[in-house]
């Protein structure tokens, strides 16, 4: 693992206590924005003011658990990253529906069900990998980035409120966002670290100056009690089979989102990152599902790892998992102070919007980077392109999708759900007719290297193989063919067979002739310069270094070189 230049404290580094606490506070500021979702669900369930405050306090306990579980590395639980789960738009639609149908008990019962589905999915993660390739995880991250950014812009501009923001009111989100971005780009040290928190405070200050934050909000804070222990389990739990599909789709979306988020975590913490560690990701998915189960048992709605929080940690350069414990401690403390909870709930909507837009920018770019790791052919281009457009159509034309039969709504009322399901379905459909093994015959008398490169690149794109693996494999194939042809080892045509599945890429080059010598030790420079024999030894040495495994075998008068690449 190699520390990236833009990260000050990577996952296993221990920042000074002050940095840890301030980073935790900054994350709490961002995560608190998402307390809006349980508040909306509570309102839909017709909770009283006191019940609403209790719901918020319980939600804070849930957020403490949700910060710690993903940061753990205990057996199969936790990927060990700073990837706190937050209340999410993924569960908002189904939870609002459940609140309407059966009140908060049904929301809580179905949330436990969704978490259980997530646990089952985490166990099947590896077997399901070919159905959820990284480009689909990247698409999910992009859709979430767009969704988060759209909500942010909506809040910033005052859309859906009593009237759009005046120019003076726009100063709140614009000042807040400009501060965050400005400090993120040009500041150094602590101001850069805490750019989002500083921007949030600037937003509060401007709101107070222009009078949009004042007496009413202070009155609401005063009216709430100073101290109080949240009451857990007061609502009970219920289950309704008819809501199971909606919560299952949400759990699947949450699972994919976590795959994308943890892939991002692995990437931002290691400059040498080349491939997702699926075992670690499976552990992270299990931790994420457990946060949702615990949320339902505690008495709040479902949660999911937050690309915004990961985006914030990337933007500030503090990705240490120690910050997760600071987040948990702060939320646990806050849960005991209803007044503090009330203070958070008066955060001006435009400031929430600025924070969401700030975080969404990093999320979007992460999604694009994940997709770009793969070679994309026309099949995969359509999987991504069509699914992205279909997902966005839900947000652009909500009226049309609302007019569809009600039983389809669980699948069509969210851009994320529809975009993701479309990508999964198209990915399965387009697998039809894709041969997993391809052959190429090369005449050693007339080697045309560009044909080999074209062959490998086009096969890689059809299979959706990782760009870096195809590049290494292409070099090995070209170098081995070149060596066999120029040395005269091979008599007659070279038969090349390339096989791919989601986990491995295997290349076999077979020919009539003696096996190629694979040097275990690099030949000296003098040996290389002295003769073509030295040059061949260098070739054999490099072939071994680039592949994950290389073997040579001989059967009768035919020899085979086998290159194996992990994928």
């Amino acid at each position, binding site marked *: 693992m190699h520390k990236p230049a833009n990260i000050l404290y990577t996952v296993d580094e221990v920042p000074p206590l002050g940095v840890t606490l301030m980073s935790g506070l900054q994350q709490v500021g961002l995560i608190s924005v998402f307390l809006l979702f349980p508040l909306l669900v509570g309102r839909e369930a017709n909770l009283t003011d006191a019940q609403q405050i209790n719901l918020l306090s319980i939600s804070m306990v849930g957020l403490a658990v949700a910060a710690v579980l993903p940061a753990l590395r205990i057996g199969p639980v936790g990927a060990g990253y700073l990837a706190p789960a937050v209340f999410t738009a993924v569960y908002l639609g189904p939870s609002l529906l459940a609140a309407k149908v059966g009140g908060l008990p049904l929301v809580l019962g179905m949330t436990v069900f969704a978490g259980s589905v997530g646990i089952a999915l985490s166990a099947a993660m590896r077997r399901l990998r070919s159905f959820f390739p990284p480009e689909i995880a990247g698409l999910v991250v992009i859709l979430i980035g767009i969704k988060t950014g759209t909500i942010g812009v909506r809040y910033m501009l005052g859309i859906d409120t009593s009237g759009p923001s005046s120019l003076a009111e726009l100063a709140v989100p614009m000042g807040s966002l400009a501060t965050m971005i400005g400090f993120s780009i040009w500041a150094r040290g602590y101001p850069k670290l805490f750019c989002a928190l500083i921007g949030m405070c600037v937003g509060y200050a401007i709101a107070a100056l222009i009078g949009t934050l004042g007496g009413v909000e202070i009155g609401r804070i005063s009216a709430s009690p100073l101290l109080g222990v949240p009451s857990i389990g007061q609502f009970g739990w219920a289950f309704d089979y008819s809501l199971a599909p909606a919560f299952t789709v949400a759990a699947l979306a949450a699972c994919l989102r976590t795959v994308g988020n943890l892939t991002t975590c692995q990437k931002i913490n290691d400059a040498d990152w080349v491939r997702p560690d699926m075992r670690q990701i499976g552990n992270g998915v299990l931790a994420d599902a457990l946060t949702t189960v615990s949320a339902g048992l505690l008495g709040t709605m479902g949660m999911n790892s937050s690309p915004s929080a990961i985006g914030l940690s990337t933007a500030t350069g503090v990705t240490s998992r120690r910050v997760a414990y600071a987040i948990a401690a702060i939320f646990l403390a806050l849960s005991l102070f209803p007044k503090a909870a009330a203070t958070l709930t008066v955060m001006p909507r435009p400031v929430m919007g600025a924070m969401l837009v700030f975080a969404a920018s990093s999320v979007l770019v992460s999604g694009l980077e994940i997709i770009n790791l793969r070679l994309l052919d026309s099949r995969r281009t359509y999987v991504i392109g069509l699914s992205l457009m279909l997902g966005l159509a839900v947000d652009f034309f909500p009226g049309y999708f609302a007019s569809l039969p009600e039983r389809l709504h669980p699948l069509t009322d969210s851009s994320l759900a529809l975009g993701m399901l479309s990508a999964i379905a198209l990915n399965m459909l387009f697998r039809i007719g894709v041969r997993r093994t391809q052959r190429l015959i090369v005449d050693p008398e007339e080697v045309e*290297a560009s044909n080999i490169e074209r062959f490998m690149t086009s096969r890689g794109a059809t299979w959706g193989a990782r760009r870096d693996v195809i*590049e290494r494999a292409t070099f090995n194939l*070209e170098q081995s063919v070149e060596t066999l042809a120029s040395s005269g080892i091979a008599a007659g045509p070279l038969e090349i067979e390339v096989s791919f599945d989601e986990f491995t890429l295997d290349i076999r080059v077979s020919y009539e002739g003696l096996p190629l010598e694979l040097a275990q030790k690099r030949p000296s420079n003098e040996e*290389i310069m002295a003769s073509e024999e030295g040059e*061949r030894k*260098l070739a054999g040495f490099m072939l071994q270094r680039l592949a994950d495994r290389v073997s040579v075998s001989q059967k009768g008068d035919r020899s085979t070189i086998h290159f194996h690449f992990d994928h």
Partner: protein
Amino acid sequence: MARLDLHEESVDGVAILGVRGRVDTTTAPQFGARLTEIFQDGSRGLVLDLHELEYISSAGFRELLLAARRADKVARRLILCSIPGKVQQIFDIGGFVDLFSIAASRDEALNAAR
């Protein structure tokens, strides 16, 4: 496009050889011959601009090693610059990174070669 395209210029007495395409068994003799000529023509140093290099095999590395030895003999500097990422990986695994003077950009290489 030709398999290997070499284009040469001179800045302040330093020869710059742009290498485009592939240096493999077929093209390595042409590459090596050109490098030999440059060291014979009295240039103060040689910058190999590799930003358009697509592929280099063991045959190409052999020519580079021979060129470095010639440069040492005639007390000239040989600087490689702008190596693309996927080619850089081949330099890494072949153990060539520490054998040559490598610059990130052409300007940096020119300064080093003067």
